[in-house]
């Protein structure tokens, strides 16, 4: 800081009124009555993500081409971006502020690009050695189990995974067709997770049958149950058992195992969820004429919207407001199915209007194979004795998946019913975190209501309206020929372009505006941050307005 010059005698003065010092003695901060301060918020997309992925951060890192760090930012909350980037129902996009300006950012496509990079660059995943004495058994190797195992291993705990099938992955491997999630990707994701730390696997071991929970309890300090739902729910109608009627999940498992399937000329899929869409589209790939019959309307369908659209594009027919009533066989073969017409009545507990039969209105369809996809169930054999279950699901008592049994946690579909991969990933991670706190007797982290920003806080003058970058897809005719992945992922320039669209809501991405526009040179530009120099900040608040993303808040001085 400069010093103010005062003269005691004319003899000290330059005769020609020449400056001999600067003005930095003049602390103009005293003029200020409102103080700006950096106050980063949580981007709404992150709040929309069940796994709380730091979406803004990884997109920002992509804009800086810091891909390894970007991938690392996802991995903090989700060990399988290559999976979720393909199959997630991306609630983050519904929260994206950009949708109020033009179109939401294509977050899953960015996530997938990073996930794939993480699989290509094997050195990005740094292996962690066992550093803690506690051992945890993780039952089930679907997304919940994998996630729980991964985060426990990251923290140095020893994990043993139990899986009843020969191959790991659960729903990822058996329930999602390859055109959405190639087996190769599943294999690589699992191998990356298993290779990341002290994780051992006991495949073809069904807990509850082959080994009891009691035994596990003796050997392990805790147990995580991520069993998933691997049984299709039955229709509960006459003639359901028998040829021509197949549980959707079993059909998908066959398809994913590479077995030849032939549903015949006419296939009907009953249900409106993602399994129904997967079954319908797989059936289309065998050449069948496929109709989805759903008891509500398109609006109530729980399937991902994109999946419904894709199914339509691939020629799947939809028949709404109908439910199978009766199966008619002739010569041991399925001949036709009688459907009951429905209408929507009062809303049920889910908020959706309940379908009720329209008295006397039925119709028939000629069907070679009828697939059931009205929901899945868990197989809780040997489990229910140990932990309290309800509605054929494990009952949890806390956010982290605590059950009636002290050291047994549960998460994923077996707790929530059919939900999503990302929900399962989140559940696995939360359980891992809670177990760590139990093992280390750590305090629960303080929960604070996060501040966020909306379109009002965005200075849209700094953005141009652009369309969302769409991922390249193979044509429908090609898609229908087999199980080739439809979505081929962003090209590098598309990745950059889409990442550049991000508003980075509430979080600084070093755009320089605050520093650049400060009339008082009172913002210090540092390596990875800015600081207000309150000695000189006059409190004009230009920085607050010109921050494109609402990162700077204000408060009155002296309050």
């Amino acid at each position: 800081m400069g010093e103010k010059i005062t003269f005691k005698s004319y003899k000290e003065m330059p005769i020609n009124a020449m400056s001999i010092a600067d003005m930095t003695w003049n602390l103009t901060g005293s003029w200020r009555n409102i103080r700006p301060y950096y106050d980063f918020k949580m981007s709404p997309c992150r709040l929309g993500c069940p796994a709380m992925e730091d979406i803004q951060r990884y997109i920002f890192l992509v804009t800086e081409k810091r891909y390894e760090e970007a991938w690392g930012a996802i991995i903090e909350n989700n060990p399988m971006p290559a999976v979720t980037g393909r199959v997630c129902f991306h609630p983050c996009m519904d929260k994206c502020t950009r949708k109020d300006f033009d179109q939401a950012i294509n977050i899953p496509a960015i996530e997938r690009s990073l996930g794939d990079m993480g699989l290509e660059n094997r050195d990005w995943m740094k292996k962690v050695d066992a550093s803690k004495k506690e051992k945890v058994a993780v039952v089930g190797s679907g997304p919940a189990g994998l996630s729980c195992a991964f985060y426990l291993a990251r923290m140095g705990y020893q994990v043993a995974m139990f899986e009843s099938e020969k191959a790991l992955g659960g729903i990822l491997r058996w329930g999602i067709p390859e055109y959405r999630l190639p087996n190769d990707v599943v294999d690589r994701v699992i191998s990356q997770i298993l290779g990341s730390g002290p994780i051992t696997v006991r495949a073809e071991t069904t807990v509850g049958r082959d080994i009891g929970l009691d035994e596990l309890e003796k050997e392990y300090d805790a147990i995580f149950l991520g069993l998933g739902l691997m049984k299709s729910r039955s229709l509960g109608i006459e003639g359901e058992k028998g040829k021509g009627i197949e549980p959707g999940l079993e059909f998908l498992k066959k398809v994913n195992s590479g077995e030849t399937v032939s549903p015949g000329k006419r296939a009907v899929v009953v249900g409106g969820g993602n399994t129904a869409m997967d079954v319908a589209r797989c059936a289309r790939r065998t050449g069948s004429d496929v109709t989805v019959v759903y008891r509500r309307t398109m609006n109530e369908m729980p399937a991902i919207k994109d999946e419904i659209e894709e199914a339509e594009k691939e020629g799947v027919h939809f028949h709404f407001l109908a439910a199978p009533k009766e199966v008619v066989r002739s010569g041991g073969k399925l001949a036709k199915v009688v459907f009951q017409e429905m209408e929507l009545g009062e809303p049920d507990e889910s908020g959706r209007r309940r379908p009720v039969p329209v008295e006397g209105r039925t119709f028939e369809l000629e069907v070679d194979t009828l697939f059931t996809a009205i929901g899945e169930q868990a197989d809780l054999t040997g489990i229910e004795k140990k932990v309290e279950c309800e509605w054929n699901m494990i009952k949890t008592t806390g956010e982290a998946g605590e059950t009636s049994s002290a050291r047994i946690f549960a998460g994923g579909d077996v707790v929530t019913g059919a939900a999503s991969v990302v929900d399962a990933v989140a559940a696995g991670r939360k359980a891992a975190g809670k177990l760590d706190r139990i093992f280390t007797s750590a305090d629960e982290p303080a929960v604070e209501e996060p501040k966020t920003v909306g379109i009002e806080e965005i200075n849209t003058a700094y953005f141009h309206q652009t369309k969302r970058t769409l991922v390249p897809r193979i044509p429908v005719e090609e898609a229908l020929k087999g199980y080739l992945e439809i979505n081929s992922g962003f090209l590098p320039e598309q990745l950059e372009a889409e990442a550049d669209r991000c508003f980075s809501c509430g979080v600084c991405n070093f755009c320089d505006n605050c520093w650049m526009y400060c009339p008082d040179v009172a913002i210090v530009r540092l390596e990875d941050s800015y600081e207000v120099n309150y000695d000189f900040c006059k409190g004009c608040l230009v920085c607050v307005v010109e921050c494109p993303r609402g990162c700077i808040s204000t408060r009155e001085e002296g309050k």
Partner: protein
Amino acid sequence: MRPAKIPTEELMTSGHLACQGCGATQAMRFALKAMGPKTALVIPACCWSVIDGPFPHTSLKVPICHTLFEAAASTASGLKAGLEMRGDTETVVMAWAGDGGTFDIGIQALSGAAERNEDIMYCCYDNEAYMNTGIQRSSATPVGAWTTTTPVAHYKKRPKKKIIDIMAAHSIPYIATASVAYPQDLIEKFRRAREIKGTRFMHVLAPCPTGWKLAPELSVAMARLAVTSRVFPLIEVTDNGSTWKVWKDFEQTPVADYMKPQGRFRHLTDKEIDSIEEEVDRNWQIMLSRERLSADLPGLER
């Protein structure tokens, strides 16, 4: 360090005496980032005579020759000649004057220097009135504006003087307008001008929260809206006044969006603002027609 949007070198320090949100100060900071330390300023009476700070202090790290109100261009002419004769041919002399010192009292010296094509830069930071003396109208004050000498009952009825047209008529090698809302563009233009020999005239719109009766935090926003409403087009005039280039790559905004947040226009009715918008559109069309015309001029190498 991450590359910065604009040069990080600061030739203006904190502690200066400008008001909150001063556009003239931003303009100086950006301009000097473009010009670099081998720049000598000539500052006539204007806000910057005060902003610089009291003797024996200064807030700039380049030499400044403060001078008389009407004498920016002539003092700069002499300074440049003196430096050259002293053997310093590298330093760029830049006159830095307000709108009063440019449009009004200083226009004679400016015209003289431009006609002689003195090897100087001349930047008018335009805050559209005599702000330093307490907001009196100048010939750069826009039509419709209140000032202390054009009170609401008799607000300014005459349009702003078209200084760019005047300067273009002097056949000087480079003329540009710039806005503090677009620092990169401003810096690029000053850099371009710096490399040219002869008289270069820069016209920077510099919002004055005090004089415009504007919340200081909105000063940059106003500078931007002035451009996007076409009230203050960003243009370049080259080839000795014959080639006009108008920046059009922005989303147009209504003139009312620019005028309404400013207290100096508060008295205007919607109808009056509409008629101002018509005038703005007409001027914009004139600019575009000049651009088209210059594109069709034969015999100029571009």
